[in-house]
């Protein structure tokens, strides 16, 4: 029995691409960036790590990738302890940081070849891989150009190619599509989906919540250095008890329609905003609108579902922590 327990424990541990326990980071100025977080990311997962600015996402990523020294806690990457098996752990990671951190004065292809070399890949093989990833990310034509001459979107793609050139088991993307236009963003999503389908575990932080909703299967939300939610995307979205829809109507109104059980607001004479709770359905709403002689031309969500949940969770936490603050006169 004990054997079975130890075996299953070891198997669970080995199946984790990332295993974090009681991770603390206190900066020299006393700021507690991380306050004892626990996090598990299984092999093969596409995992979202979300949080507001300064919540602790980048510090967590920095510690995992050894760019930031932790204060205390344990971190295992693909079963390797970053304290005692640092280089083995690093070998498993590909990192796409938030800011451009390649040599702007090096040719694009050289950046990838050097990166491969740091992981022990011979130059001939490095060239082959560089060609493969530059072609896949539509940068092959730019291979001889200095990196500084690339556009913002091309630089983002270069960082992804660089992170993949040693074919890591765990790819960490810190805001990979920041400042990238929607067309390139979507092609990057396709590329990342494919990389994940081929077995690469991906951890993604992003400010575009529809990105996380579209790509990720599991999610953790970090706020003020603590994990406040860690579950599957499905379960999290199921928690959403209310959605806000924006309806463009064919008529012009001077006051919002009164519909029993629905909160309505008039944005402008041709646009209504309606809050719908989970126990109400859209058919009933449309029947009411029809009865009132209102015809809907188009409909959209005010914000995406994950965004609403995120704001409610982070807002709730903020309210909770404000409750504990001393109240002045």
């Amino acid at each position, binding site marked *: 029995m004990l054997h079975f327990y130890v075996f299953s424990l070891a198997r669970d541990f080995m199946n984790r691409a990332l295993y974090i326990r009681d991770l603390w980071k206190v900066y020299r100025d006393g700021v507690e960036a991380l306050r004892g977080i626990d996090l598990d990311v299984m092999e093969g997962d596409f995992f979202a790590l979300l949080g507001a600015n300064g919540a602790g996402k980048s510090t967590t990523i920095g510690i995992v990738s050894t*760019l930031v020294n932790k204060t205390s806690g344990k971190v295992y990457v693909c079963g390797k302890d970053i304290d005692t098996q640092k280089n083995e752990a690093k*070998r498993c990671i590909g990192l796409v940081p938030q800011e451009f951190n*390649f*040599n702007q004065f090096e040719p694009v292809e050289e950046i990838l070849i*050097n990166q491969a070399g740091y992981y022990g890949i011979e130059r001939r093989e490095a060239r082959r891989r560089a060609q493969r990833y530059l072609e896949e990310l539509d940068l092959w034509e730019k291979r001889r150009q200095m990196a500084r001459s690339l556009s913002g979107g091309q630089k983002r793609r270069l960082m992804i190619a660089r992170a993949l050139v040693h074919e890591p088991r765990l790819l960490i993307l810190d805001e990979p599509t920041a400042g990238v236009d929607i067309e390139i963003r979507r092609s990057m999503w396709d590329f990342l989906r494919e990389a994940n389908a081929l077995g690469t575990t991906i951890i993604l932080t992003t400010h575009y919540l529809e990105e996380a909703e579209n790509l990720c299967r599991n999610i953790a939300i970090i706020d003020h250095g603590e994990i406040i939610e860690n579950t599957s995307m499905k379960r999290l979205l199921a928690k959403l008890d209310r959605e806000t829809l924006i309806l463009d109507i064919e008529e012009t109104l001077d006051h919002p329609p009164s519909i029993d059980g629905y909160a309505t607001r008039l944005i402008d004479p041709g646009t209504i905003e309606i809050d719908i709770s989970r126990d109400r359905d859209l058919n009933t709403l449309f029947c009411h609108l029809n009865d009132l002689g209102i015809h809907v031309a188009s409909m959209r969500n005010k914000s995406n579902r994950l965004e609403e949940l995120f704001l409610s969770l982070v807002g709730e936490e903020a309210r909770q922590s404000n409750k504990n603050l001393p109240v002045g006169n």
Partner: protein
Amino acid sequence: MLKYYYVALKTIVIKEVLRFSRIWVQTIVPPVITTSLYFIIFGHLIGSRIGKMDGYSYMEFIVPGLVMMAVITNSYSNVVSSFFGAKFGRHVEELIVSPVPNWLILLGYVLGGMARGLAVGIAVSAVSLLFTHLWVENIAVTVTIALLTAALFSLAGFINAIFANSFDDISIVPTFVLTPLTYLGGVFYSINLLPGFWKELSLANPILYMVNAFRKGMLGTSDIPLGVSYAIILGFIFILFTVALNLLNRGVGIRS
């Protein structure tokens, strides 16, 4: 594992050599021109009136010192500017997140610095042939002293880069420490010409030992016993390597 170390080290060294080769007009040409001016002004125009020094023409006497001066300043400035540039542009993170051990990162940068120091040293030696007949008395001493000196100043440049927070910080040491010590390190004169106190004071200048050992290798004359020079150079290399590696292991200047 050895193969991995070899590939990683080769990658860093090639990257460093390509870096200074790409900008050869900024890295190789200026020291060659500066040294040529020294040859013309001090060696040819003024030197012809100075006469013999330690039994050699003044031009012959200053050639080893000027070659060594080029090796020192270029190996130092290559590493300090390259590593600080990597910090400033944040591409040092490529190396930090990779499995390359810190000692290998340090070794790679030092070899890169040595490569530039020696490249410039060879170029300056070649230019000196236009002004004087050059020979090498002891090739082993000449080569080892040049290599060790380049390694020493590459390490010093690396430490400077670790602590530097701005481009001003990487020019302070070369301007206010390296250049005065080099000029006062017996490049242009024999310390035997100095009065007692100044001669004793000169012995505290480590560059004096390198210049004299190199001159011993080339011309066969030196103010300092060769063994003392080797001991001092190796001692400094050991100290600087230990300090640089310790700083790198602690992540000083590169990790939060």
